[in-house]
């Protein structure tokens, strides 16, 4: 019994380590003005070299761990966003990038907009800015990874 428990703990630690060191991201534009997308592309350029952290842009939602979502969710994009999210295998995380993804921003109240991203799918990290700088986006990913680390999570009692 005891051995099984330690074994599981070790396995968990290995899994967390692997997850922390290889976040593969997929980028989805659910109706942004393209400002945020340009910043995400800038993040992926050699200047910021996110391969250092193991971050890799994947084309297929099946390969990705982190969905980076930009812009407000339009009526048209809503179903697509849901589909992309549901195609990702567990465990999966979502980062909402830009003011629009957080609150609807400049597009709030438009006739063709559903609203912000977390009205449609659960969001783990918000990166504010219009658009946020590449450093902020990288920081968002790092914050997300920090949330995964058991040591850095607040003890369960405090939450309750």
């Amino acid at each position, binding site marked *: 019994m005891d051995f099984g428990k330690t074994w599981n703990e070790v396995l968990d630690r290995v899994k967390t380590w692997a997850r922390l*060191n290889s976040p593969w991201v997929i980028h989805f534009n659910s109706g942004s003005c393209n400002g945020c997308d340009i910043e995400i592309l800038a993040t992926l350029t*050699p200047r910021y*070299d996110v*391969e250092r952290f193991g971050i890799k842009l994947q084309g297929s939602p099946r*390969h990705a761990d982190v969905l980076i979502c930009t812009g407000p969710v339009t009526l048209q994009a809503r179903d697509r966003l849901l589909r992309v999210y549901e195609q990702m*295998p*567990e465990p999966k995380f979502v980062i909402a990038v830009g003011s629009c993804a957080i609150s609807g921003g400049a597009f709030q109240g438009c006739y063709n907009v559903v609203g912000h991203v977390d009205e449609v799918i659960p969001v783990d990290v918000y990166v504010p800015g219009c658009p946020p700088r590449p450093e902020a986006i990288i920081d968002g990913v790092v914050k997300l990874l920090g949330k995964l680390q058991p040591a850095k999570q607040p003890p369960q009692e405090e939450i309750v």
Partner: protein
Amino acid sequence: MDVLKTLFILLIFPGGLFVLANGMVYEWADRKLVARLQNRVGPRWFQPLADLLKLLAKEEVVPESVNARLFVWLPIVALAGVLTGALYLPIAGLQPSYSFSGDLIVAVYLFSMLTLCTGIAGANTNNRFSLVGATRTLTQLFSYEAPFLLAMLGPAVAAGSWKISDIMAYSSTHPVILLQPVGFVIALIGLMGKLEMRPFDAPEAETEIVAGALTEYSGRGLALFYLGRYAELIAGLTLMSAFYLGGIHNQLDYIVKTLVLLLALAGVQTLMTRLRIDQIVGLWWRYGTLLVLLQWLVTLLLKGMVL
């Protein structure tokens, strides 16, 4: 004892785990070299290991409308094929674990299993990107396979044997790379085609067709396909240095020769952009095959004159 020894050879060293670990190190070296050539910092040394463990720990989605059994077994068959082929090679400067006359052909065909399985895996799913990827994978397979095999058989013809250890003995005494320079270049480029490295990565062009034939794979299946590719990198480099770079005699020899080849591969990857699939087919059939056949002619003539 014999059973244990065989199992050890098959699963741990020099087959199985050793090839995989070695493959991961070389994959990292390749990515790091490309990154340095592009003026980046590049990934950390454990990156392929972390990617692999993460993929193994992820959920595996088996999509509807695929043949589930095929979907699950294809990556296993692909990996097993490459690892079996690696048993006939002088991995890490050791004698091949197994050998018989004609093992070169068997090994080269076992290395094609990976590409073939990738193609079938793409065709198995009902996803349009996978289908396009599978078509491209198989088209590319048919275009580079013939010249690659011919280029690998060049030293075999010169040595007069189809056994890997005999050819290696021949290449240790003859400067094969000077006698058959065309064959060397074509084998090297063919290896890049096999590994779907940059100028030949049309089958998985992520800007056009998401991730090619492997679009629908997640978790374990994807990890096994990646492992197959790492093992194939090792196998290809070993085969090339054994045939063209004067054979592999000890561990240092192995490391130096394979790393020199890897540096060449990284250089080409950095310099070139992706070729279209029709350009790839044209390149191989119009130039590659003809040049290699010419090389054969020269080799045979030389051999006839010397004998």
